[in-house]
């Protein structure tokens, strides 16, 4: 993991060895989908196979990978080599890893599930006709959540005919933190409604996987007050619910342009020296008299120093947020803000960062 003081150095094994189900959540818009996809890529390097699952029916994965809408079916969406993630070009890295994706369609999943257990036949059609699925998932969101988490758990445990795991890891792009604990705590959500029967036992089986060390719940945040608050609250809730906490994924980190010493210097009085430096850099024009050149940079001085002070204020705020996150005592990873947004190349870059920092 990348602590605040330790940059991306050589280290031991990845931090989540043994985890098969990675749940990625966070405040809305912080980059859950992006980070989940980058993590699936990172975990697939070195010839592994991962599955990226989306549960909210928004086709965010398709949009991110720039492909057509995904059907309710596991599909290969990317291959990845260790070299693409900044690893060595030769050796083990030569086997390409594969990322599969699945966009779960709740209605189909529910009918499929019911049919499997109850052989509904005509009754299934009847349920569909009266709008049962909409109804069931609205009035008892726990039922939908059991299905969604159940699907992810099933994929994480699935074995092929040769007895090997179908996927080395499954990454779920989960609902935002506000709904996360309810979403994952399917057991208690459903228990109040369905006290017996197959849905109830399904919920218990799912809970068993979710609470096991094979699962880790990561939260994505920005270095801003509200997302950090939500992250701290989110981990507290997860702990209280007995769910396994994962890492803190700090996203959209802006590079510190001015280092701490420079920021401190801005607060001192360095106006004149800075003015001289600007003149020297040619910003005072080509006039031969020093005084004219000095006068020419004058209008730049206050705006530049103001911007630096704003920058310093931001750095100080981010420092506070980092301290709040550090108090969680969880592995933490930092992903840079990519100017101009995240394209496919950017996604590999973020995956490389996660790998370098030990998340995969």
């Amino acid at each position: 993991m990348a602590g605040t003081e330790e940059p991306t150095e050589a280290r031991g094994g990845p931090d989540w060895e043994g985890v098969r189900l990675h749940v990625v959540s966070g405040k809305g818009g912080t980059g859950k989908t992006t980070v989940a996809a980058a993590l699936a890529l990172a975990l697939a390097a070195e010839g592994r196979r991962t599955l990226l699952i989306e549960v909210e029916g928004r086709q965010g994965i398709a949009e991110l990978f720039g492909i057509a809408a995904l059907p309710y079916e596991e599909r290969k969406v990317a291959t990845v080599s260790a070299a693409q993630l900044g690893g060595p070009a030769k050796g083990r890295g030569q086997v390409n890893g594969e990322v599969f994706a699945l966009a779960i369609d709740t209605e189909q999943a529910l009918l499929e599930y019911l049919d499997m257990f109850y052989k509904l036949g005509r009754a299934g059609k009847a349920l569909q006709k009266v709008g049962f699925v909409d109804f069931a998932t609205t009035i008892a969101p726990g039922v939908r959540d059991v299905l969604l988490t159940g699907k992810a758990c099933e994929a994480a445990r699935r074995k092929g005919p040769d007895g090997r795991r179908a996927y080395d890891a499954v990454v779920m792009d989960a609902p935002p933190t506000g709904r996360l604990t309810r979403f994952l705590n399917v057991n208690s959500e459903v228990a109040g409604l369905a006290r017996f029967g197959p849905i109830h036992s399904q919920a218990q089986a799912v809970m068993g996987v979710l609470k096991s060390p094979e699962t880790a719940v990561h939260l994505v945040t920005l270095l801003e007050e509200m997302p950090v608050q939500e992250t701290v609250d989110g981990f507290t809730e997860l702990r209280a619910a007995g769910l396994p906490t994962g890492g803190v994924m700090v996203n959209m980190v802006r590079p510190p342009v001015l280092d701490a010493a420079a920021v401190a210097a801005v607060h001192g009085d360095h106006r004149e020296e800075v003015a001289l430096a600007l003149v020297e850099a040619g910003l005072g024009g080509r006039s031969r008299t020093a005084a004219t050149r000095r006068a020419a940079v004058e209008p730049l001085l206050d705006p530049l120093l103001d911007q630096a002070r704003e920058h310093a204020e931001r750095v100080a705020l981010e420092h506070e947020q980092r301290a709040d996150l550090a108090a969680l005592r969880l592995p933490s990873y930092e992903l840079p803000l990519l100017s101009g947004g995240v394209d496919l190349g950017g996604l590999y870059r973020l995956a490389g960062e996660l790998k370098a920092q030990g998340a995969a």
Partner: protein
Amino acid sequence: MTTEQELSVDRLIDDPRTRIVVCCGSGGVGKTTTAAAIGLRAAERGRRTVVLTIDPARRLAQSMGLTELDNTPRPVKGVTGPDGPDGPGELHAMMLDMKRTFDEVVIAHADPERARAILENPFYQSLSAGFAGTQEYMAMEKLGQLRATGAWDLIVVDTPPSRSALDFLDAPSRLGSFLDGRIIRVLMAPAKVGGRGAMKFLNVGVGMVTGTLGKIFGSQLLTDLQTFVAAMDSMFGGFRERADRTYQLLKAEGTAFLVVAAPERDALREAAYFVDRLAADEMPLAGLVLNRVHGTGAPQLSAERAHAAAQSLEENGAEHEPGQADADVLAAGLLRLHAERMEVMVRERRTRDRFVSVYPDVPIVEVPALAGDVHDLDGLRLIGHRLGGTAED
């Protein structure tokens, strides 16, 4: 080339005919901040104002005295109108408690015994706490209640932190149609026709549906469900009527929508959807608040020149005596920072221009990105001042 007009929030809030301002937009763009800033400004300009916030940041909530979720407006300390405490102008604020608002609706519409049955039903509890859209619906409900009291000159409404700004408009009808849905009627059928009716028009045996549900969920659950549906049935009409009435309120004279967006592609795309939707529903759009816009005091220095100058300082750094070498490093940092700022501004400008070229008639006001976040009344005043726009101050 842009033909956009400047939006003046002062003109809007100073007009006594403006009674409701709704702040919409996608998540995290600053809806709550904008709503609070407008409420404060209106109060300080002499109107009796209430702000309905949904999910304020903790420190902002504290600064407005919103430490408790008691679901009623409370006066905000430290705010008076232009003529002091005895003149007109006051600010009240509240934070929405969605479950409590829902409970109150139930209590208002059912006799005590039935209300209790509903409130205790596990399905109601799940619906009132978790239904996607309950928050939106309850925000509208609360708005309707505040308006009905007639106690306020101006109501400023924040909207829930949904992904899409449209959710606010769609959720109430979604809940309505859910409560009117066929399955509800199927579940009600046994009670209505003595337990053995077949809904011929659906061509579905009620027994088959309820039987299957019982098999899946267990009979206890089915009983809970039917109790819930039966209890709610008497209220459906009331629910829908209320939702319709509030929806009409949004179309009425005196209501103004402000769409809040950050100068980013995703946020402005959402804003565009919302603008289209308001037009389709004939709802009054007052304008776009472009929040967290970056600016600079030195626009004459381009990113390219700043980078080049920084580079020359970095390369020459070693040739100076220590004091000036430090200053060179500092100046290079300032120039890099400026270059970055200019690049952000160019991108934001481009994003804005794209919006304007499609919506030249939508008035816009820009609010600068402050260095820190906005968490006290002074911060809100600053934002409010920028929102004020062209009207005299």
